[in-house]
């Protein structure tokens, strides 16, 4: 199953999103990398790398980020892995994470999971 990594400046934010995703995706491997290693706000390169490794499988890993340095730091971590195995999704975090984890749970491949996450950009809320 494709693994999902959630990256944010805030530890609370990603752990909240993880809980929220678990309502629908019980099995899919999800890891979070929120905040700095000293418990503050920020993004931590090593934390993201560890999170990716922790949900790594031959099916690959999709990283979902919120804003600012989350994106730039995730991009640097991406350079450490094979580009067919680890990808980033360009999507809003909450909606994208729900879509991606549900898609991954259904057994889809990495590209399909990424597409599911990015499709949420096209969905209007009202």
């Amino acid at each position, binding site marked *: 199953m494709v693994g999902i990594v959630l990256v944010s400046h805030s530890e609370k934010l990603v752990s909240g999103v993880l809980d929220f995703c678990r309502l629908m995706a019980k099995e899919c491997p999800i890891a979070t990398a929120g905040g700095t290693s000293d418990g*503050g706000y920020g993004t931590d390169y*090593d934390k993201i790398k560890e999170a990716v490794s922790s949900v790594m499988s031959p099916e690959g890993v999709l990283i979902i980020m919120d*804003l600012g*340095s989350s994106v*730039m*730091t995730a*991009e640097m971590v991406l350079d450490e892995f094979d580009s067919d195995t680890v990808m980033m999704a360009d999507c809003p975090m909450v909606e994208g994470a729900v879509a991606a984890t549900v898609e991954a749970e259904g057994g889809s491949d990495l590209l399909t999971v990424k597409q599911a996450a990015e499709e949420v950009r096209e969905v209007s809320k009202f």
Partner: protein
Amino acid sequence: MTDSDKVLNILQKIADAIHENEQFLTDLDAAIGDNDHGINMDKGFQKVATDIPSLSGKDIGSILKRVGMDLVSTVGGSAGPLYGTAFMKAGAVVADKNEIDQEDFVSIMEAGIGGVQLRGKAVKGEKTMLDAMIPAFEAMKASCTAGDDTPSMLKKGVEAAENGVEYTKTIIATKGRASYLGERSIGHQDPGATSFTVILRAISESY
């Protein structure tokens, strides 16, 4: 000529200068960001300072790359991947060199700016560190070509960076956190442009 020992010396000066300006940089970020730029930068350069003894005897390329890695793994905010990539790219252009000259310094600056742009995808005029970096680079390149010595080249670079910081007060942020403020970002100087100027001034004062 600048050798590895001198580079380590300068890095310590930069770390000290960032430390002295920690509160100032954080206050600037409080106005148009999230109140952490000085804290972030100080965390990063204190880690660099801790690593200086272990870098003694290494070539300048390896030193700069290590600085980049330190910044990426400790800074926490956008400045981490941005300055981190800048130092790593800078290190690549002087790989294996134990001494660098004025022209190498200009190439280092150019590669560093390339790193910031690769990572942040910003251009001049978006109220970021680039608005100090690019004019400083251009001034130093022109000065180097004109045959100025290192101290005057660096002075001109600092002057251009300072003018760049002033310029950031007049424009709207379109990249980074400050971009959420839109028009309200006008009147405030950019924290990243300011930290770059602090760094360049520390380098200049070492000559």
